[in-house]
């Protein structure tokens, strides 16, 4: 590994975990193991191994959702380490994923630490504001936290690689490799069983078993299975095409703001919504950052501009893409206020709407859309269709941007009704309703492809593999009992 490799990998980890500076879709693309694994592969010169290692990590994290800054492990870091180990040490993807798995916890430490440490920037900003020093929100929301994160990411990558190389000899010894393999199988089992239980739908289980059996028996290709999924998804959603806004944008008269102002504000939000994510105000700083150009245009007096921006730094948290009608609507209200028209209290409406959009949004973008497209990618990549496997993730990115942008505009032009329209669209989405069934079937295909890939090892060591399966089930039952106990 060269210094350049290291530098590029640390930039990749920074970019992926920052979820900033990537049009709001970094979280759905760069951060996902299959993509971060692929890019790691590109950097280290073996894309296929990178994608494969990333895919295995991705299955371990298939039930990943992050709500309000809480998550179980850092999948991006895990994927970067897994792909690197797989390429440099020339070991299988499952073994490398097993080696990389513990590093996920190192990453999560950074995620939580960042939420605490970013409070510093909030305090500094407030301090300057109180001393009438006109602090720039772009610096305190954007630049400073991002520089800090870059340094932190580089340190984490450095520590991880030092650890991996220190134990290199231990890792590639013959007997340990097999244990790693079994540990990898254990982690995959846990993840898949947990998801199936979480779907809470007996037909999902039936479909899981059927697709698993069918693919194994007839050696069906992932292309064919993908085609089925696409046909089903389109037939369910052709009427609402996920979230299309059918209502026309109304024209307002006598406006100060134009579409370009709205676009710029949206653009800032998409790139910085989590740039200074912190426990004190979550996305508050980002909200104010996105309002900067709007407020500058609406008000002339400099002290009024600074204090209005400051008001927007208050606690805010929502799903950043589904929730965009809030922003559009709030911009409209702020414009009305600046024109001297009577409006509803802005903070009240903003706080009321954010929780609603967050609950509904997470249960759609993170629980339905991302696993849907990522699972299609996984089916394809495990079937050696490495390059086609990237298409679903690109589509996911485009859909997220579309949802976000249309929401922003309709919030401004159509008002609060647009949030209600969106709620109804998401709630009635047939893809969402049928998702447990689709997801169950895709997991069946993914499991079958994993078995096919590892057929030789599995058939030679069937006893061990069954033992691991039993241990995984016991482990999950023990977890459930522990959770129940905690609740009493």
């Amino acid at each position: 590994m060269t210094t350049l490799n290291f530098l590029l990998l640390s930039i990749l980890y920074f970019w992926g975990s920052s979820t900033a500076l990537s049009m709001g879709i970094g979280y759905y693309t760069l951060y996902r193991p299959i993509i971060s694994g692929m890019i790691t592969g590109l950097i280290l010169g073996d894309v296929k191994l990178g994608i494969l290692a990333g895919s295995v990590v991705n299955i371990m994290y298939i039930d990943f959702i992050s709500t309000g800054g809480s998550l179980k492990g850092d999948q991006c870091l895990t994927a970067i380490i897994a792909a690197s180990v797989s390429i440099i040490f020339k070991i299988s993807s499952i073994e490398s994923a097993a080696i990389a798995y513990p590093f996920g916890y190192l990453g999560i430490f950074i995620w939580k630490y960042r939420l605490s440490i970013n409070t510093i920037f909030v305090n500094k900003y407030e301090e300057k504001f109180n001393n009438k020093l006109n602090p720039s929100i772009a610096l305190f929301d954007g630049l400073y936290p991002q520089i800090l994160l870059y340094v932190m990411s580089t340190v984490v990558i450095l520590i991880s690689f030092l650890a991996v190389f220190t134990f290199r000899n231990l890792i590639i010894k013959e007997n340990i490799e097999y244990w790693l393999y079994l540990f990898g199988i254990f982690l995959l089992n846990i993840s898949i069983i947990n998801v199936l239980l979480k779907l809470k739908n007996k037909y999902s289980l039936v479909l899981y078993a059927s697709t698993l059996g069918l693919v194994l028996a007839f050696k069906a290709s992932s292309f064919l299975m993908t085609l089925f999924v696409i046909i089903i998804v389109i037939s369910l959603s052709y009427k609402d095409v996920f979230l299309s806004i059918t209502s026309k944008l109304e024209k307002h008269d006598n406006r100060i703001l134009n579409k370009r102002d709205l676009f710029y504000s949206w653009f800032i939000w998409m790139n910085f919504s989590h740039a200074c994510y912190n426990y004190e105000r979550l996305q508050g700083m980002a909200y104010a950052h996105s309002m900067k150009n709007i407020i500058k245009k609406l008000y002339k007096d400099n002290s009024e501009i600074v204090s209005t921006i400051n008001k927007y730094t208050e606690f805010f948290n929502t799903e950043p893409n589904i929730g965009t009608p809030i922003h559009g609507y709030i911009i409209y209200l702020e414009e009305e206020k600046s024109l001297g028209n009577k409006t509803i209290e802005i903070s009240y409406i903003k706080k009321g709407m954010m929780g609603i959009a967050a609950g509904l949004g997470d249960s759609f973008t993170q629980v339905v859309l991302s696993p849907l497209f990522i699972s299609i990618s996984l089916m394809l990549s495990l079937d050696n269709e490495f390059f086609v496997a990237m298409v679903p993730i690109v589509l996911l990115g485009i859909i997220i941007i579309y949802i976000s942008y249309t929401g922003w505009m309709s919030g401004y032009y159509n008002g609060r009704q647009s949030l209600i329209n969106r709620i109804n669209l998401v709630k009635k989405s047939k893809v969402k309703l049928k998702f447990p069934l689709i997801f169950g079937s895709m997991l069946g295909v993914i499991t079958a492809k994993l078995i096919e890939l590892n057929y030789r090892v599995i058939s030679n060591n069937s006893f061990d593999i069954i033992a691991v399966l039993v241990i995984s089930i016991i482990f999950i039952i023990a977890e459930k009992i522990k959770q129940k106990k905690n609740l009493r």
Partner: protein
Amino acid sequence: MKNIVLTRIDDRLLHGQVIVSWIPFLNIDEIIIVDNEYAGDDFMSSLIKEASPDHLNVNVLTIEETKEFLESGDNKSRVLILSRYIENIAKLIQLDIKINKVNIGGLGFHNGRKKFVNAIHLSDSEIDLLKNISANGIEVEVQMLPKDKIIKI
């Protein structure tokens, strides 16, 4: 009286952590949002109801209405109470509503509040209220998600 499974204090009320994690985990049937402000605002209360999952019965009620509502049903229905303010829960307890456990899930910063732990910020008077609640034998704990560690107050 209905079976109150959990009482949660959270600025964001019915948001992602609650819908994705707590509700399925606790098998909740009914949700009461105790909020005098939203209960008096038709738009906000209908927005909250529209946004909630269909299988749930969601009610946005004032403190007095909450008492009536809880006493009107049998104990089969599993209820989750959500509120933005600790005061509301303290008032419910004063009204003899049987609450076993108060969960604190997320309270953002605003003037007067200090950081308690991670995403929880409390003012001195709020800490006193919580101490009073826990002195009444009610468990008070910070826990964002079912799988997170519990921090007792």
